[in-house]
């Protein structure tokens, strides 16, 4: 199973909380395109089986495979935030980055033929709009380290208190 190697923050989804309502996709597509169109969302909900539901966005991998795969050097990673930036002048929509991404987190805009990747709404004061809108608090900004800390705490509670 692919895992993120990131030291950076990314948007994660707790599948035990996600109900598959897609509000994250509505709000993302509106913020990024001015229209409601889940096809154009940079976060995608997935229903693999009837009760297996989650949402996926860019995991800001270190040494991001999408950046390495790009034959035109159109993708670059912000060294401070890990966010992948797309140079629209260089990108020709070849989709090598789409194939390189283990998380299926990149899509090609059908009209402009350029790659689109979650940027955690870095230009907005109140941060990622999907996190703000998620009605079940299933989405959050986190890092692998913080998730590990939480797992350890959960384990401690389970083992010590048996609940």
């Amino acid at each position, binding site marked *: 199973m692919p895992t993120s190697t990131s030291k950076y923050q990314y948007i994660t989804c707790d599948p035990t909380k996600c109900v*598959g309502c897609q509000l994250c996709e509505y709000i993302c597509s509106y913020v990024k395109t001015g229209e409601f169109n889940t096809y154009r969302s940079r976060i995608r909900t997935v229903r693999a089986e009837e009760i297996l539901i989650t949402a996926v966005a860019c995991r800001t991998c270190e040494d991001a495979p999408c950046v390495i795969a790009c034959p035109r050097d159109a993708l670059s990673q912000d060294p401070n935030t890990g966010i992948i930036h797309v140079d629209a002048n260089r990108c020709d929509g070849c989709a090598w980055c789409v194939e390189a991404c283990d998380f299926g987190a990149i899509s090609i805009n059908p009209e402009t033929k350029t790659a689109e990747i979650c940027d955690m709404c870095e230009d907005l004061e109140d941060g990622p709009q999907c996190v703000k809108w998620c009605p079940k608090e299933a989405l959050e900004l986190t890092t692998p380290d913080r998730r590990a800390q939480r797992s350890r705490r959960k384990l401690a509670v389970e083992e010590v208190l048996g609940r």
Partner: protein
Amino acid sequence: MYGYSGKILHVDLTTRKTWVESKPEEWYKIYIGGVSMASRLCWENIEVGCDPLSPGNPICIANGMFAGTPVPVGGKYGLASKSPLTGFIGDSLSSSWFTIALKRAGWDGIVIHGASDDWVYVFIDDDRVEFRDASQLLGLGTFQTEETIREELGDDQVRSATIGPAGEKLVRVASVTNDSRQAGRTGHGAVWGSKKLKALSVRGTHGVSVADPDALLQLSYDITQAAQGPHTQKYRILGTMANVLNLNRLGILPTRNYQQGVFEYAELISGEYLHEHYHVKTIACAQCPIACEQMSQVKDGPYAGAMTGIDYEPLYAVGSNCGVKDLRAAIKTIDICDRGGMDAMSTGVTISWAMETFERGIFTKEDFKCAKYPEGFEPNFGNAEAVVTLAEMIRDREGIGDLLAEGSKRASAQVDAERGTETWKWAMHIKGLETPGYDARGLKTFALGLAVGTRGACHNRTAAYDPDIKGEVDRFSVDETRGKLAKSTEEYAAVYDTLPLCKFIRRCFTGKADRAGAWPAIAKLINATTGWDFDYDAVDLIGERAFTIKKAFNIREGWTREDDHLPWRWMHEPMKEGPSAGYVVSEEELEYMKDLYYEAKGWTKDGLIPKEKLIALGMDDVAEEIGV
């Protein structure tokens, strides 16, 4: 125009031709969407008087202005045809991705005419329409059909409305399913089957624009937040299953084919018990921040592995109403219905009719022979395996399942004609549609609402149980207020069914679910979406118009006052025990309430609609045809 594309897609399965019809904005302001627009499309496109299973009966789909926007619970569509169960309007609602895909493909509605010679599925790829061979899909269940089509078309965003094996075999209680939600009632699956239409698949890639996105986002955000609080707690935690114990306490939980209103094992089939033992995941329809579907799974015993979403209405029908106290068998039966593509309510109530007919000695073990039980079986109330088996037999039209697949009205008529019996007296239906999970002997306003319902016995099209259950009126007697109450509650429900918005959001606008609490907020949503200037009164008219077009459809198909009836049992057999003991709805009470209702609606004593009434509602062409 915002909120609509202004375009209806027509598809003819006989000629394999398609065409586009443009509708003016004024038409949308009257019919809006959902059940109202779907019924209007049916009015415009049906061959009047046709057999519901003939090519002249169109399949009419209408989505709503809110589909594809963040307006909570606005991802619903209406589906209408002439019902093969009732012979009157069959208007159903379903929800989730399918309707949103349709919206993004640029269609306000779809009308499917004619019938195909070979099994087909129709793929609407934005504005391109493709007729595709469906032979490889035959026999597949509803969910499996959707997945197979996604595989075949190579896009997991393709959404499909499908029929299961039941619809293929023209089972009259068959439903249409999309995204694990059903347009459940009135037998749509049989209509699709009669046209050899296995599925309607849609890919929509365009964006949806609204008149005032900033305003709409703010309104939607506030409602989304309110929908996490106490106003929706019932739905989010136990779902509609919370009703089991509530209705049992009131003595109106249908038990053993409505012979009783109290089930001694209610605890064992309660929402609380389900939640503790079988609940595995709560899921939502697309565009819904509430999430009410309680996915439940059987983990042990002969039905291990069965899994589906459990709601109150299917559960009473195959549970208490069949005397079944084992939730595992009930989950299995509902799973068979959902995957086979059948209305679990009508299926359960038709099975309970067969069980009573067996217990009264008219059916014998011999009548229940099948491949699984070559010697037959004895379907006494409480025989859970018998209910599971009968659901399978109805789905496959095997053995006596072939009779039961016709629904309780036709099945009882056939048995009575052949055997000289009176089994129709315990066939629990109105106009041919099986009764819902409330015994109306203890809810007299609701009894009226059900009797006059345009699609038969439906708890969703009238909210007349509300004043009864809340104690706003005496639920055991009738008085002069009931006509107005039935009108008011059916039109209230019709506003939601027409926009359409799921009614579970009704308390989230202001905390109050009544008109004053909801209509001003709904008007704001409509205006931000469309740019119109709707107010309280305009919202209120949506419901009256919806019921009027459905009633007009029925009148043109031959409706008369006698069609507004109740099951014989509710009128002649007093409830035996519990808080509703001793009550019936007498002939005199029913006819008195019908008079009051027709008067409140502004109709004639015969229940017909005056021309001037129709013209005042903006339905001049309807007035020409059926106005008096």
